[in-house]
């Protein structure tokens, strides 16, 4: 590990003062489950490391009439057992409960998962299906961006020569919150992941889904996301369109699964993993549909 200066601020304001005062490369550390490995192996060589675990104001799960709001410093352990998340954002609870191992879930945060921006961020895949919005703060104030735009390939880099994979966040910015609409009465979500080994396996495939039904049990609003089959998790709108306005019969689901498989081929067709993933994605997505149907018929 390179030598660096260390700060453990108590508030966001303190962080912004540190950003202003320190001219060298700064690096934020939350759970450390990604960045510690990078610092330790000298892939990332910061001059200044700033601890986020000491900042209580980004550690919360709140619910108001319209939205569920999650502080970026909230751990997977909290999210997978929180009553609000379990009831109104099942996909996110399921995704967080499948991250790494107990130890990793106790440390790792949702903010770290989003900013690390790996192809297979489990919570990210669920959050894309929940149509989440990020709140990013800098000394200049707050800005909001949808998670999908945050990762979109066309996203202009706001941080040059930065140490993380995500061009969407600048050097003097902190991700403070992620929020999404509360589920409607007839809206249900689910997530499944395929990993190599149960614990610790970084996902080789994830599917997130959120579906709202109308009173006739027809699909009113569907969002489906795929993870680990591209640079970042993304929505598959052409597959969503197939089920839109229809009842979830075996046939409709099968059509949707075939479209999802086609999207996988279109995105990673040249990769060695494609023959496997184009088939297994159907099985994983079928399970997600089953979870949604089960929830909707209770």
């Amino acid at each position, binding site marked *: *590990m*390179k*030598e*660096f*200066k*260390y700060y*453990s601020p108590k508030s966001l304001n303190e962080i912004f003062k540190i950003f202003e005062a320190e001219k060298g490369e700064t690096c934020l*550390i939350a*759970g*450390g*489950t990604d960045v*510690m*490995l990078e*610092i*330790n192996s000298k892939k990332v060589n910061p001059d200044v*490391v700033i*601890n986020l*675990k*000491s900042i209580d104001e980004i550690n919360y799960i709140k619910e108001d009439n319209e939205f569920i709001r999650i502080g970026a410093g909230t751990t997977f*352990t909290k999210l997978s057992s929180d009553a609000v998340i379990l009831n109104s954002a099942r996909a996110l609870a399921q995704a967080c409960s499948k991250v*790494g*191992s*107990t*130890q*990793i879930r*106790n*440390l790792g945060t949702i903010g770290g998962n989003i900013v690390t921006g790996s192809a297979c961020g489990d919570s990210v895949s669920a959050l894309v299906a929940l149509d989440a919005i990020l709140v990013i703060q800098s000394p200049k104030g707050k800005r909001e961006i949808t998670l999908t735009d945050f990762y979109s390939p066309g996203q202009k880099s706001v941080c040059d020569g930065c140490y993380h994979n995500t061009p969407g966040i600048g050097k003097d910015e902190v991700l403070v919150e992620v929020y999404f609409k509360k589920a409607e009465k007839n809206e249900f979500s689910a997530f499944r992941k395929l990993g190599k080994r*149960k*614990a*610790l396996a970084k996902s080789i495939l994830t599917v997130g889904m959120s579906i709202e039904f109308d009173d006739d049990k027809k699909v009113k609003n569907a969002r489906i996301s795929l993870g680990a089959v591209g640079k970042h998790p993304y929505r598959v709108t052409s597959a969503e369109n197939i089920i839109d306005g229809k009842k979830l019969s075996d046939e409709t689901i099968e059509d949707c699964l075939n479209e999802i498989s086609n999207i996988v081929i279109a995105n990673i067709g040249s990769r060695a993993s494609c023959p496997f993933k184009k088939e297994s994605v159907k099985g994983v997505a079928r399970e997600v549909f089953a979870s949604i149907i089960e929830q909707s018929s209770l």
Partner: protein
Amino acid sequence: MEKVKISFKLNGENVTVETPPNKRLLDLLREDFELTSVKEGCGEGECGACTVILNNEAVTSCTVLAPQVDNCEVVTVEGLGKDGELDKLQEKFIEEGAVQCGYCTPGMLLSAKALLEKNPHPSRDEIKTAIEGNLCRCTGYKKIVDAIEASIEE
């Protein structure tokens, strides 16, 4: 390099130490406090040999930066039993033959301890989830799960 002064509770005692910040919790515990029960296996969060209990939760100490534990509470295996007596979990590990080479054992014990503190009557599945981040290359896990199960208070 500018050292940082941190205070935390270690195995029930308040301690203060000055450390260079570029140290993992794993190394702070082994080098500065000579708590060599904390093992390094992979150094990448995968094996669980370095597990400690941090604020009542099991964590991999190789992925924690030492100064991050300022004002926190840390427990290692040295903090388990009392007055020279082994903790019940440790006794059951011996009785059930859950220890072979022993390299994974401190981490296993602490993952199990953190579980039992939160959930005194876990199911076998809950026990397996609690130790899913602890690899053992010797025992095949069954005896470890048996030992944890046997330690559950009636």
